[in-house]
């Protein structure tokens, strides 16, 4: 059973990562910096619990705050550029963060062992959960509380005026600007929110993994982050969740028996998904169909 709890932990953390990219994508911006914010959250939260002896919950709060601050500071200059330029700029930032942690040493002695991040070796012994006797099930539930909170927040945002503004910018910047929307403010606020969510996910990841290193936060993770909302579709937060379940649950875990052939099929299935549904699993059309199925009648567009 622990295996499935572990898988659920992974899916939860990746859902947070995907949702952080989802918020930014709503404004039409593609950010490959999410893995960087995720790494910042992981290192900040782990350093606070291991080195400063904080409880996990305030440490996660501090991590989210750091992620948001960094994202805001990066967003202001980076969002001057659009489209592919932004992809490259955020990719450069993400790789910069990874290489920063590759060079980052800060160790203190704890008893007879030294703890803390150690460059390429990574950050070992993040033992908050084992030290406090949390079971795998409890850790999983803890992670999913955050996932559900964030999903609820984003679901509610989508129904608020702010969500409409985000989508208006994503749909047509020029039209949004003529309607009096401050483009920079909207985009920077979206990337700030995304940074906080990614850092929160990173903090949770560091604690259930107990060992983090710079290699885990490379372009691979950054592309996964952007792939979830794209594969799942941008019509609803549930698209991202569906895509994480599809990718991590089915493609990665479900096909594990295939051994070496898994990655071949993985690539082929993602390409197939993108070619069959370029707008993702859940686009506006079939979201409406699903709603009609559950609530009956056609109450018009969502």
């Amino acid at each position, binding site marked *: 059973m622990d295996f499935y709890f572990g898988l659920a932990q992974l899916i939860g953390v990746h859902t947070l990562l995907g949702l952080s990219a989802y918020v930014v994508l709503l404004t039409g911006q593609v950010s490959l910096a999410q893995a960087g914010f995720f790494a910042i959250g992981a290192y900040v939260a782990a350093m606070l619990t291991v080195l400063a002896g904080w409880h996990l919950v305030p440490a996660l709060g501090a991590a989210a705050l750091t992620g948001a601050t960094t994202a805001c500071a990066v967003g202001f200059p*980076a969002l*001057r550029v659009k489209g*592919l330029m932004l992809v*490259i700029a955020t990719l450069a930032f993400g790789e*910069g963060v990874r290489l920063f942690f*590759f060079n980052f040493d800060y160790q203190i002695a704890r008893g007879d062992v030294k703890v803390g991040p150690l460059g390429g070796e990574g950050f070992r012994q993040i033992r908050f959960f084992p030290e406090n006797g949390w079971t795998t099930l409890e850790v999983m539930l803890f992670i999913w509380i955050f996932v559900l909170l964030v999903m609820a927040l984003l679901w509610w945002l989508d129904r608020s005026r702010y969500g409409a503004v985000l989508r208006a910018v994503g749909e047509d910047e020029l039209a949004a600007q003529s309607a009096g929307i401050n483009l920079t403010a909207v985009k920077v606020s979206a990337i700030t929110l995304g940074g906080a969510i990614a850092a929160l996910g990173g903090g949770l990841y560091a604690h259930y993994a107990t060992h983090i290193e710079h290699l885990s936060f490379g372009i691979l993770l950054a592309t996964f982050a952007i792939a979830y909302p*794209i594969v799942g579709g941008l019509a609803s937060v549930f698209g991202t969740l569906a895509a994480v379940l599809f990718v991590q649950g089915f493609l990665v875990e479900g096909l594990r028996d295939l051994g070496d052939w898994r990655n071949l099929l993985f690539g082929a299935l993602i390409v197939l998904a993108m*070619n069959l549904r370029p707008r993702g699993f859940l686009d506006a059309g079939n979201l409406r169909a699903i709603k009609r199925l559950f609530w009956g009648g056609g109450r018009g567009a969502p």
Partner: protein
Amino acid sequence: MLADLVQNTLDGLAAGSAYALLAVGFTLIFGVLRRVNLCYGPAIMLGCYAATFVHLSFGAGLLVLALVCVLASVLAGGYVERLCFAPHRKGSGIAAMVASFALWMQLEEVAILALPKHLYPFPALYDGKPIDLAGFTIRVEALVMLGAASVVCAALWWVLYRTRFGIAARAVIDSPLAAELSGISVPRVSMGVFALASAIGGLAGFLVSASFEQVTPMLGMWSTFKGLLAMMLGGLGSLPGAVAGALVLGLVEAHSQWFLGPQLRDLLAFLMLFMLLAIGPRWMTTR
């Protein structure tokens, strides 16, 4: 001190000429398709793996290996174009980028399945000693790469400015719609440009593998990053710019490695790119 500076500059230019080939291929693809092809490097890596496979199985010579490398890269590149870029010609570039990322994982897996060890030796481009010039060493491999980069650039200029295919390609770069209206088959031109870029990439991969005398699966990501960085530093979408950007990247890396050490070298390259894009001049970012 001055001697070190000169030596580092020479080394930087040598590395830069390898980057130049990668960046030129990248720029061609970007210019025509307006898409980031994350799978550019992995296709090159697959070409190098095919060459290594031929070398291990038949002990083929360098010339044959170069040919195999270029051919396999073109095939892999064509595969990527068909699956990732042909279906997404209209619409957003993001879907194409995600698809090219998926194929990256696939190509890497193919290479690892064919040759499972972490590192394979590659025959050396040149066995002798480096040239000694007034106390400075110049690697012969570097001269070959510089020569190859110059020849490829000249040939590419000829193709783009003196052939019908080149005129069609430039028309597509300027405006795909106008090109299509004047009877140019945009898909065919895209495929041709993709093949050309992959061939140049394959040549770069061959020269890099033969001068480092090894291939690893890391070559894929390495090529994508170096090509991308050099292309961006050169101001995106211009071939002379790509070459200049590649040389600048080589120089910056060589000097920062000397002054700051190898670990900070890559960090500096990425930070430089980010700063240039974020607060740099407007002309770099208007494309």
